[in-house]
């Protein structure tokens, strides 16, 4: 079985982004970019399934500009077998990403697609579910545990009240949550090896997908900052202030 892992190139999670003063967007010039952290978890899970003999090949795919090839190399250095870059300089919304991924799935015929539960730039949390719907497949979102047993996938999901376990017919879509695993670091030899692994280039047009956005972004602004607070000297002072000044207890 082949596993497909979509990986998105996003602003590194440690970077505090800046909003352009004219409201036109987020300033991405000279900002450190990395693989979306949830997608690293996805690559790791796919590699573990391969190492456990449940999968034969791990393919990473990214939709984005030429530099998204670096993100694919990160996945290849972790151990993925090959990459697919669907090259576009346009901003692609989750619906269009899902349509492109549907095309990739039809070409590659994986038994499992593991996506991140959300991209930490757009915070949409949509793509996996959309892909699943377009394919008519089952889905196990926000996964903290994945077990393959024949053609049945058992997924433990992080839900608002705790944990839920579902059984899915394969082929299936999984989206990763933080507790699924701890991604490995790529070793130097593997980084070198990754340079020789193949990356196929495609375009959205190859899959017949129109990426025109459906949402018009009118403005992007910085949220209001909180007023600076005060330091209190003791627990007694804290309680007194919460009672008489803030009136919350």
């Amino acid at each position: 079985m082949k596993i497909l892992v979509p990986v998105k190139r996003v602003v590194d999670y440690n970077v505090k982004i800046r909003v352009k003063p004219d409201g036109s967007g987020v300033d991405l010039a000279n900002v450190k970019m990395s693989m979306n952290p949830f997608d690293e978890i996805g690559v790791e899970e796919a590699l573990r399934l391969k190492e456990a003999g449940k999968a034969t090949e791990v393919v990473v795919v990214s939709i984005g500009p030429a530099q998204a090839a670096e993100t694919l190399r990160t996945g290849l250095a972790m151990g993925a077998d090959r990459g697919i870059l669907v090259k576009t300089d346009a901003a692609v919304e989750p619906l269009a990403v899902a349509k492109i991924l549907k095309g990739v799935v039809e070409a590659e015929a994986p038994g499992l697609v593991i996506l991140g539960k959300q991209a930490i730039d757009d915070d949409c949390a949509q793509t996996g579910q959309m892909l699943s719907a377009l394919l008519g497949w089952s889905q196990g979102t926000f996964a903290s545990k994945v077990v393959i047993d024949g053609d049945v996938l058992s997924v433990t999901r992080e839900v608002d009240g705790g944990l839920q376990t579902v059984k899915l017919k394969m082929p299936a879509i999984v989206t990763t949550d933080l507790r699924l695993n701890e991604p490995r670091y790529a070793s130097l030899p593997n980084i070198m090896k990754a340079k020789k692994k193949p990356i196929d280039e495609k375009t959205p047009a190859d899959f017949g997908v129109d990426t025109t956005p459906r949402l018009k972004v009118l403005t992007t602004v910085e949220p209001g900052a909180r007023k600076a607070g005060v330091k209190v000297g003791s627990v007694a002072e804290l309680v007194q202030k919460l009672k008489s000044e803030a009136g919350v207890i």
Partner: protein
Amino acid sequence: MTILLVAEHDNASLKDATHKALSAAQAMGGDIQVLVAGENAAAAAQEAAGLAGVAKVLHAEGAGLAHALAEPLSALIVSLAGPYDAIVAPATTTGKNVMPRVAALLDVMQISDVTKVVSADTFERPIYAGNATQTVQSTDAKKVVTVRIAAFPAAGTGGSAPVETVGGASDPGLSTFVGEELSKSDRPELTSARIIVSGGRAMQSRENFTTYIEPVADKLGAAIGASRAAVDAGYAPNDWQVGQTGKVVAPELYVAVGISGAIQHLAGMKDSKVIVAINKDEEAPIFQVADYGLVADLYQALPELAAELGKLGR
């Protein structure tokens, strides 16, 4: 304009998230109908009929709908979608699981986690862990929207809408519910609590949450939250995680104990009315958003805090 609001419930009663998403739907304007889909969910449907400003309740029954699994519930919603201009649900783990499927099947781009309704087609939503706010206008004929519940007040009751039974769409049989482990607690739910006390990595163990956080939370009638680090380390269950990728909360009072204040954590609590931080590092970023900061060792400060609150008769 007619809006279908997808209710969140446990078959017996509505979740508070439904009331909050209803406020957002009301802000969009127009007729609002509520879908209650479940198994033996008549009581929840009746409760929905009593929500203020609801024109009609659609009640769908089916074994496949018992646990709000995404595949059957999205199929049902899509089968009903025809007459509606917008389909709205709270951005809970259920809404997040189901609604993007609905959007894709309707060929619509979902607007996720809306924090403000500007008009029926224009919304504000946070991106980059709340470090930027986007205003987006949907060009799709139907709007599919999930609502950040911490950003909206709960709508009231006092309505008496008719309840109409609708046929459940057939379950595509792709997934089956196996079981769940729900945290049981007498405390208020995190997302609707008036006060939250949260612990971070500095708590060091699950027992310390019990020994140090609980007495303070008990005295305040508070819910308990946690940072990702505390959850990853197993000191707290996953459903306590507050943050960009956990729960977003906006209580009257949020007490962050032994939490450094990473942007991912701030994303989940910085809209709280009053923030208290207790941290032994005076440089901790959490102090930049705290209204009241106490530089102290939590293992001393929390027992003292419980005692001081005790003096107030709590």
